[in-house]
């Protein structure tokens, strides 16, 4: 057989090599351009878009300079892992302090005492866990006790894959523990809850979709801001099929923020990063936070927006005698309570 080749064979090779160099060049220039990076979790996207706009205006008035803030959003645990693995974030805002602790412990990029550096344990805003039910509440769900009754179908994400879902779990566990004053009864309570759970999505947004769009389940256990967002979406599209139910007691879901000290220092962004996070505590920052359905920590802003946020009894993780580390080990780690629930079924 004769060897035949197209005359143009060489040209693609050369252009391919050129392409490689060009793309490497483009990628590295992209990397150089990423001046200020904020790594956050999923439901805060819209919140920080607005925060960033306001902050940059304030910064320009004060310092006279401009810069761009890049946002990265994803599951809280995934985002923490990305930072550990080298995503050069200047600041992080995540769903649980456990994730920031992990960054600090595993990479040393964040100071171990990060939680003491900003007001209110570095928690500028918080939320709580509520129920979303179908219009006119056909299953008469008023409180946590009602959702563990037989015949109620619950939608909640998987605490093993979703940071937010761990708050859901701990809210239920905490309610039972405070009511029945026993660890064992509280474990039985969450066991009953997961027995009623028909779909465990991997993230909070997935669960909302299952409940709202697919119409599956009687009750969605969800963050207050996510519930309000769903109602807002419905209002906008002219539908009216959902209701929010506030249980008698729920958990104070504290979502902390931190400067990634080492990275920010290396990139010369330490001042920007610190001022940025401090901005969250200002009047302006707090009112934007309230607008996006997260509960503000500033007393005056909270009072002004109290219509949005009904006053229910909130307990914190420390009220349950737990830290994130102990809760993680006891409930969510391998062979923890959550694993045991599904082992016995």
């Amino acid at each position, binding site marked *: 057989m004769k*060897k035949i080749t197209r005359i143009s064979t060489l040209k693609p090779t050369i252009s391919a090599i050129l392409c490689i160099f060009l793309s490497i060049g483009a990628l590295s220039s992209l990397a150089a351009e990423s001046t200020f990076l904020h790594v956050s979790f999923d439901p805060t996207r819209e919140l920080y878009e607005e925060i960033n706009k306001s902050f940059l205006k304030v910064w320009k008035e004060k310092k006279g300079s401009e810069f761009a803030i890049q946002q990265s959003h994803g599951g809280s*645990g995934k985002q923490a892992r990305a930072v550990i693995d080298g995503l050069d974030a200047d600041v992080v805002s995540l769903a649980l302090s456990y994730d920031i602790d992990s960054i600090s412990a595993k990479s040393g990029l964040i100071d171990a005492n990060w939680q003491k550096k900003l007001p209110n344990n570095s928690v500028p805003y918080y939320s709580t866990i509520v129920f979303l039910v179908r219009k006119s509440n056909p299953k008469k769900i008023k409180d946590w006790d009602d959702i563990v009754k037989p015949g109620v179908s619950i939608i909640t994400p998987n605490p093993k*894959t979703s940071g937010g879902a761990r708050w859901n779990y701990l809210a239920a566990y905490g309610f039972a523990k405070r009511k029945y004053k026993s660890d064992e009864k509280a474990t039985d309570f969450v066991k009953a809850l997961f027995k009623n759970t028909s*779909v465990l999505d*991997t993230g909070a947004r997935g669960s909302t979709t299952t409940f709202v769009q697919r119409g599956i389940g009687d009750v969605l256990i969800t963050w207050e801001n996510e519930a309000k967002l769903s109602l807002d979406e419905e209002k906008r599209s002219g539908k009216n099929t959902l209701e929010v139910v506030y249980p008698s007691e729920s958990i104070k879901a504290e979502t902390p923020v931190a400067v990634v000290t080492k990275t920010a220092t290396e990139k010369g962004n330490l001042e920007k990063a610190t001022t940025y996070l401090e901005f969250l505590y200002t009047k302006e920052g707090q009112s934007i936070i309230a607008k996006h359905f997260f509960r503000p920590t500033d007393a005056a802003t909270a009072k002004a927006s109290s219509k949005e946020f009904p006053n229910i009894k909130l307990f914190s993780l420390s009220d349950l005698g737990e830290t994130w580390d102990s809760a993680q080990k006891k409930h969510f780690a*391998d062979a923890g309570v959550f694993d045991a629930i*599904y082992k016995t079924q």
Partner: protein
Amino acid sequence: MLIETRPYKKIHFGISLGLTVFYSSAVVIIPLLGLFFHSLGIGVSGILEVFSDNRIRSALFLSFSVGFISAIINLFIGFLFAWVLVRYDFPFKKLLDTLIDLPFTLPTAVAGIALTTIYSQKGIIGSYFEAWGIKIAYTPIGIVIALVFIGFPFVVRTVQPVIEELPKELEESARCLGATPFQTFYKVLLPELWPSILAGTGMAFARSIGEYGSVVFISGNIPGKTEILPLLIVTKLEQYEYEKATSIALVMLLTSFLFMFLINLLQDRASKKLS
């Protein structure tokens, strides 16, 4: 325009081999070796311990069984599709031919969400089955459907060119010698097609056991019931247990590799037998 040239110079070979080795190392070999060494951190006993957990074992069983079932379904559906596309002419054939590649390019999460919408209890098809007491979404049946969706182009695209290449004389002479259509298909055509069918099905299977995006939406992820292996890897990662995660990945990788290897062996043997 085609012209005759000298054989490739050594220097061309050098550059292309260099680039091939560079790319395959950077993109495939080094990451896989990394995976391998990462999971070696906990040792063989550690890996065995990971798999002593009931939840992981049931996910292992589920992933492989739904993968196997969907691969078998794909064997038939894929073959049928390929046959119809090659042998018959019908309106919109080109369009159908293009659509087959869609699962290759569509983000699998999109496929997962679309399938769940249709097959959930309130969906167009799901509600129909619900009336008969059959649940599709959030059960292993749903997972099989998702896997059939993402796997079937593998079979079609491997078998299709082979059917196209089948010499017409083969069939004609078989028929002339008095074989029935079924005998012609079974004794003359099938042995020719068998290696490619096997290869396509093998690839669909290997793809199925690693599939995550489309399955997590439709499976419901109930531990011990509808939880697949890739989800458990994500679960372990979420707990910062890199070694456990990579050891599950390693076991999946080795099994897939072994399976592909066996398929190749069978395929080799089948094609040798033919020649």
